[in-house]
């Protein structure tokens, strides 16, 4: 992979910042554009960049398939369980007011948790979609580049 030195170095430098930006977008969704879905896609973009530059096999070692099968339902379960927590604590489904002693804090906590769930699922789904397409054709030989 001598040919792609610039690509590899720049990717290695950028990926941590992309992940950091994804986390920023995730948790600042209530004060600016952002939220679960956008953050999940940005997060996934970092892993997809890694897979594009370093190869699908290497990317599978970084994020194994089993981890994705675990993460995709996990986010949705977090969302649904927050809804049920609302019922168990005395309110309606997805009622955030009852999640904390003060309705405002309850709302803040509720939105934070469900956006986290959404972010996890979306990131995992985006990476799985990419992997489903990338894994189907065999990689191009180094000489054919």
């Amino acid at each position, binding site marked *: 992979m001598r040919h792609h030195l610039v690509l590899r170095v720049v990717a290695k430098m950028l990926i941590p910042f992309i992940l950091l930006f994804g986390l920023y977008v995730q948790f600042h969704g209530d004060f600016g554009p952002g939220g679960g879905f956008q953050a999940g896609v940005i997060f996934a973009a970092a892993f997809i960049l890694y897979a594009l530059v370093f190869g699908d096999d290497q990317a599978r070692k970084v994020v194994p398939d089993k981890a994705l099968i675990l993460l995709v339902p996990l986010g949705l379960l977090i969302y649904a369980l927050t809804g049920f927590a609302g019922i168990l604590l005395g309110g309606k489904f997805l*009622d955030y007011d009852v999640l904390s002693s003060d309705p405002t804090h309850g709302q803040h906590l509720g939105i934070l948790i469900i956006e986290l769930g959404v972010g996890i699922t979306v990131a995992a789904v985006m990476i799985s979609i990419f992997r489903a397409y990338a894994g189907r054709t065999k990689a191009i030989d180094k000489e054919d580049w």
Partner: protein
Amino acid sequence: MNIILAHLPVLQVAIPLIAAPICVLFTFGGHRKLAWCFTLVISWVSFLIAGALLSHVLLEADISYAIGNWPPPFGIEYRVDPINAFVLLIISGISAIALPFARLSVEKEIENDRHILFYTSYLLCLTGLLGVTITGDAFNIFVFLEISSLSTYVLIATGVRQDRRALTAAYNYLILGTIGATFFVIGIGLLYMVTGTLNIADLAERLKPLSDNRAVHAGFAFIVIGMALKLALFPMHVWLPNAYTYAPSLVTVFLAATSTKVSVYVLLRFLFTVFGPTYDFVDLTFEFVFLPLALLAMFAGSITAIFQTNVKRLFAYSSVAQLGYMMLGVSLSNIPGLMATILHIFNHALMKGALFMALGCVAYRLGTVSLSSMKGLGRSMPWTMGALILGGLSLIGVPGTVGFISKWHLILGTLEAGYWPIAILIVGSSLLAVIYIWKIVEVAYLENDVDQNQVSKEVPISMLAPLWVLVILNFYFGIDADLTTWVARNVAETFLGGGA
């Protein structure tokens, strides 16, 4: 216990929704049978919840549940009234009856390592259909409609192991279904632009003084066309025959009995609750759009069915004709006509459920559902073919079956509206149904040169039992139709008596 009862409307959707990710987690350990068993339990729980909701709504009052405790015009509201609860019962009931049949059918038709994801998609489809029916918020209808549609495309495409045309069938359905759903969203956007609300009851209130507004007319047109695409009203039915033919048997049973009915329900909800038949443009639509298209559907569907050699495709075209009957009932805009539509939502689910399940049993033994391979099957698979013929009698509308009840009310409706030529046309298209059912009877029972190499015996009891449950229900509700006609009359009077 009281917590459960108070939150039933949301549990109806939330339980299948949370079951779907749990089903994915079964991949750790490869528990295929557990996935089927889990889906079965969830379906039966949904059926019990739907039954509880229906009895509460019929005996007491409509239920309104505010999600997130935000009061109705501001938040999303789940609203259960008789028509809702009725359709919920149909969806969960068909799912509950079809799943015992699924164990062997899915084993045979789908690769082993795909079973867990197949049942996950099935649960998501169930969630989507239940959600469309129970919600009282227009945009929420779109969200759940797309959840169910996307899982439907996946479910149809899993039939690729039997025939690769399942892929193109799913693709065509995807393109047409997405266009339909996007038209629906455009219509909702136009209505939101004019009224400022998305809640169905609130929309009905705010649209009352606005019947001359051009944006409202455009919104109505987009919504009607969008839902007509989804419910396969002729000529927008082109996705239906391929989708039903190449899908796995369980998927065809579930979809034929539920997905188009849910779209009919959404159309009824918008036509009668949101807009109301007193608007001129709604009346004009009934007379000049629905009526001719419904008549064309009845005849084009039945005539095309007569010439098919693949029995699944034959019944798919017959479904197009039956949807024509439902839209005819709507277009008459009087009480018997609307009762016929609502009864037919229930009756068609029972009829087509039984017919496609019988075909699924045939496919389990023979591997094919072509007419010529069914020679002499009446002797080797008596129970299956018996169910098929009885379902066919119901399709024709023989007195004593559910098919007769809906056709009877439909004819009453046409006579009350003064359209007696249409009554003759209804009888005519029922006679066409006799022709294609006779084709099957002839091949199955009256052929003498049976292929001796083809040895088939009856299917196991786990597939026969749900099939005969559906057949018996066909006759039970045909003989004692009091409950269904009472519900239908109740709903029709509410719809035509001034909405909501």
